[in-house]
């Protein structure tokens, strides 16, 4: 067991540090909602420039092989880069879904020509991809989707509605999962395509979240025609293709960001209660200890995963725990921090409430994280079934033709 960098790792870390120091600005110490008031379009320009710079310096998609334009690095190098970059005020979030999930799916199922066309521009940040799977009536049960594609000569005609599409409004391309045969069991009638998001039949509407913001979209498809060559995988094999995409998601789904125990410690140090400073209060101390232990547990679980990966193992569904733990903790921790602020905790403007209102923001954001990318409940099912090997719940829709399942 060794916590320190090996000489190679240390050299790589130094290289990363030099790159970051020369090209980016460091972050502040505690959590903040830094880009709160900057327009997204402006942030996006910076992010694209940053992605290009990373690519040019060999720090984009570090584990991708050279043939695809990556530096062919190790998982450990990826981790080292991530550790170091997290201290800097740069934003790579625009590219995570495209490069982490969509483009690898394209790479796995499209022909060489298509790959050549798309991989490079995606890697250097010129083109961004989104993933169009969820629908209003198909959330936890994604395979229950109803957006359909009907064959018409060499083309397919897509009609329907997708939802919770991150970044659809700034994305150039997307991969879309549709139903091509409603007469067979639900997993068997699906097919995957890539689409040009600029198609006039695609209507992207921002989804107004309960938090007030709009990080996601509804995407309406009206007679959108795609060529059969845009198909990824065989007709009826869409679920298998989607699983490839989602397997990549597993690694991408991380920690709920936002206010953490460090922020709570800061708050507790500066908050006076009836009997003295909050940091000396037993209830506050107990909660800090519990949340700290959870945060550390997740951190070292990631380290264990990385160690396993660097020994050639593939991370499994056990990584589902990260979101389950961190989303609820964010909700509980922010709620408790607001309780400490007493009545003033209801205020949401950083000028009034201090701490950049990170607690209030986290409190409104946490319910979404408990749902996005697999609800608490679905993730617990996954842990029970795929990690602990427990049997599935009774599945009344198993083998039933999709159009005969009660809706």
């Amino acid at each position, binding site marked *: 067991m060794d916590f320190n960098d090996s000489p190679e790792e240390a050299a790589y870390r130094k290289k990363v540090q030099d790159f970051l120091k020369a090209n980016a600005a460091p972050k502040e110490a505690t959590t903040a909602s830094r880009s709160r008031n900057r327009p997204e379009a402006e942030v996006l320009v910076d992010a694209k420039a940053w992605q290009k710079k990373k690519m040019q310096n060999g720090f984009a998609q570090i584990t991708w092989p050279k043939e695809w334009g990556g530096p062919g690095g190790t998982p450990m190098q990826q981790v080292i880069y991530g550790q170091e970059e997290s201290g800097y005020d740069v934003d790579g979030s625009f590219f995570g879904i495209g490069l982490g999930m969509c483009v690898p799916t394209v790479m796995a199922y499209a022909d060489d020509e298509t790959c050549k066309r798309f991989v490079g521009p995606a890697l250097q940040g010129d083109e961004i991809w989104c993933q169009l799977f969820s629908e209003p009536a198909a959330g936890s049960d994604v395979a229950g989707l109803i957006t359909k594609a009907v064959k018409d000569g060499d083309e397919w005609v897509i009609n329907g509605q997708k939802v919770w599409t991150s970044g659809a409004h700034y994305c150039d391309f997307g991969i879309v999962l549709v139903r091509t045969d409603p007469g067979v069991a639900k997993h068997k009638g699906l097919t995957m395509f890539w689409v040009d998001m600029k198609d006039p039949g695609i209507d992207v509407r921002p989804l107004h*979240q309960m938090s007030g913001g709009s990080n996601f979209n509804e995407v309406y498809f009206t007679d959108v025609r795609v060529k059969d060559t845009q198909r990824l995988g065989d007709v009826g094999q869409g679920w298998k293709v989607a699983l490839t995409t989602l397997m990549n998601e597993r690694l991408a789904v991380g920690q709920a960001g936002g206010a953490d125990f460090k922020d709570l410690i800061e708050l507790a140090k500066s908050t006076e209660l009836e009997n003295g400073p909050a940091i000396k209060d037993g209830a506050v101390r107990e909660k800090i200890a519990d949340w700290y232990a959870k945060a550390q547990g997740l951190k070292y679980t990631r380290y264990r995963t990385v160690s396993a990966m660097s020994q050639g193992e593939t991370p499994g569904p056990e990584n589902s725990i990260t979101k389950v733990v961190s989303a609820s903790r964010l909700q509980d921790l922010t709620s408790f921090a607001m309780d400490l602020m007493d009545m003033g*905790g209801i205020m949401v403007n950083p000028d009034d409430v201090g701490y950049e209102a990170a607690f209030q923001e986290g409190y409104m954001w946490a319910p979404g994280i408990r749902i996005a990318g697999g609800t608490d409940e679905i993730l617990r099912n996954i842990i029970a079934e795929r990690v602990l090997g427990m049997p599935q719940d009774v599945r009344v829709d198993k083998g039933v033709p999709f159009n005969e399942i009660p809706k």
Partner: protein
Amino acid sequence: MNFDFSEDQKFLKEQANKFLTEQCETAVFRAVLNDSKKTHSKELWKAIVEMGWTGTTIPEEFGGLGLGYLELCVIAEELGRAIAPVPFSSSVYLATEGLLLAGSQSQKEKYLPRLATGEIIGTLAMAEGPRQPLPKNMDVTFKDGKLSGVKLPVPDGSIADFALVVARTGDGKTENDVGLVLVDLNGDGVTRETVETLDPSRDHARLSFDNAAGELVGGAGEGWSLTRAILDRAAVLIAFEQVGGAEKALEVARDYTMERRAFGRQIATYQAIKHKLADAYIANVLARSNAYYGAWALSTNAPDLAQAAATARISATDAFHYASKECIQVHGGIGYTWEVDCHLYYRRSKLLALTLGGPPVWKNRLVSQLEQSNAA
């Protein structure tokens, strides 16, 4: 013993429910929620005033209905269920109660009749930013009839006509150096600024006082105990609002799970969903029962009112918090959208949890009572 509301009170509750179901539909609170310039629903407030609810506990001699607290409790429950966007709690539970408790005859004569008719709105200004407002850290000062300093956030501070302001009246930092000061908010030396909060359907403001004229309610050193007495009474009433909100959130959640299907069946058939809502139900029952005892203690001015109020508030805060957050969760993605009402309960639940002071204050207070009482 008859630990239940009377038939008349139940009838009043039913009427209030019918009234609010009609008058406080989604569109009414969405209108306030979506327009940052709107402080409350003027139409609904007018209708409530016309129902006479603002004068529920004000004696007839001051133009009120002269009813009891049990009547006010059932109204509060329905207002909570409707998450009504009106300054009712500020004006009725806080300002009116403060004057009823400690106002001089002339103060009562001057304010109560107009509070009853809704001609004026009152409030209580206590907080001074994001921290517990304690005698030892209170900055707002009342000297020689003049009030100075900043109160933030003050519920309904943008629209209230007067406030009872908790202020330092003595030179020390003890409870005895605190007074309760009545200030005309439309007078000189008062600046107001609306502040953004978690629940935009309810108004809150920053009130800055610069030598504003004021008069004491109660004695100069009695402000702290008087404020605590007001808060105890309000806690019972807010507990009923919380119980109403929690039950509504549970109903909304339950109904959705019976509609929504996943994997070929109603999600209400899944044990994880059922147990979550069973837990919400359990919390709601405990909260309701504790609120009832609080109502009894309030209506009889029982010696253990403070203990009963804290207990009711702790249970009700728990119940509403849980029901509202899990209401979003069982909805899945759609529950996280602005258009679906789930977040309104989530927002209101946190507002009500903090508005009279947060759970740490009330739990601490409850245990202090328990330490003393042998009847624990």
